């Protein structure tokens, strides 16, 4: 299990990576499946933030 300090960095990078993917899926492509997946990734990052902070 990675340390909480490492997990905090993971949260930051996942959010940063998910930002353009969320935009492309929801705004550019308007693809419901892709949008749900990218939103789930953001939810996962938020869940890790809840644990690691």
């Amino acid at each position, binding site marked *: 299990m990675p340390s909480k300090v490492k997990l*905090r960095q993971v949260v930051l990078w996942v959010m940063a990576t998910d930002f353009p993917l969320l935009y492309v*899926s929801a705004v550019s492509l308007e693809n*419901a499946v892709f949008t749900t997946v990218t*939103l789930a990734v953001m939810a996962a990052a938020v*869940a890790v933030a809840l644990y690691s902070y």
Partner: protein
Amino acid sequence: MDNGPTLNLMNGALAFLPILVLLVALLGFKWSAPKAGAASWATVVLLALATFGADTNSISISSTKGLSLSFFVVSIIWTSVLLYNVVDKQGGIKVIGETMTRLVGDPLAQALVVGWAFSGFMQGVAGFGVPVAVVAPLLVLMGFSPVRAAAIVLVGHAWAVSFGSMGSSYYTIQLVTGIEGSVVGPHMAMLFALPIVLTGFAVAHIQGGLSSVKRGAPAILVIGGSMALFVWISASVGIPQLASIIPGLVGAGVGWLVSKTPLIGKPEGHGNKVSEHSEDAKPAKSDVESAVGVGNNFHLAFLPYYLVIGLSILSQIPAIKSATSGIFFALDYPALETALGFKVDSAQNYAKIALFKHPAPLILTSLALSYLIYLVSNRWRPGTLNVAIKLTYNQSISTTVGICTMVMMAVIMTDTGMTALLGRAIAAGTGAAFPVFSPYIGVLGTFMTGSNTNSNVMFGALQMESAGALGISSVTIASIQSIGGSLGSAIAPAKVLVGTSIVGLSGRENEVMRRTIPYCLGIVLLVGIQAWVFLTFFD
């Protein structure tokens, strides 16, 4: 926007739930901002899907809008903290601080020049707790007790937060309210005159009680008047990102001049609070090596900030403005409508980061120029940049995640109509007295998150909704939201913790907060009354 569901007890209570979760998490459970932000984002997503008619697509778009706003603000934080760290690693911050210390001898003048004006300057160039971290130890070095030093800088820098950090909070209030900077900037600056002067009186009172207030009153009015004037000028001529830097410098300069005149009276013997100063407590001369780094040269130490100021002024030249206006980063967002009929307009060039207007590119350019000048003049300390980048990265992670989660929460609340409902509820509850309470909402946001910027994001739209529902000036309400958020920095636990930890008072935060809370709440009350008078008689 007067649309969406009609306010009732149930939807009003549900709309408040994400903020309640944030409040309980921050104040009740004492969670950090990222953790509390994460909990409130999860709450708002579930609520929006279950009861406010949103779907996964609209939640995704609102979250992305939140990240766009976050990127706008976070880029200022990362670059300004990086610049500060580079200057610090070059030995510059120490030289700047010690130069200030040597120039002023009287304890009251030290409190005013360093704890009030210079801390405002530091808020302008760095912000995010840096003024507290830098100025509080300087005051201790000058002979102030740690509690007094922390309280002085917490209250003293609070006037500079809205326009500080290269204007990040000011830009945020523009973004979330949709009011042009040329409108809200000068208005906010005008309303800031009162709290600027009042924070000066508060600093004098913390330093030496009523006797310091009496003997410092003429000087405070002169220094505060100068700072207020330059805040207004900076905001009016289109350089709001410098509206803390320039007034802070002007205030420090005027304060230094005033300290050499009879405007600051002599201390009343040794029985007052000045006695905590002794010659032994005077700072030692700089021990910064002169062979590398900036040595003892103030102007070399200050070079990156000179460049930031110069580039910011250059960026306002119309020819340069028009030549670079097409170079920017921004995203377009479509219109949204919830199943309950709440509509949000489409947004073009949302949270625009213009190459030669946004503070982040200006800071990076000044950093690059400073590097070249230091390198050519053999002043560059090898490894400075690597150390500064690592430090900045580690310092900024939590702030970034906190801002992202809370801003996403705030935008989802806005886009699903929750903020509108809350605004209507507050307007209905406070009525004509709303302007008096409005700045306290700004204080609350900063108290919860430690950030004027976050406060503006969280409550800016809500304040607009309330003002709209009451039919009062949205510009004044947007201004006092940000002013309240700015003044809330004096009591925000996140900032108090920075101050107490750096002056060796860890675990004694209550002692500092007991000192700062009365000044903060009192000044905010006067700001609210000022807004009410302005709206009632002059608007």
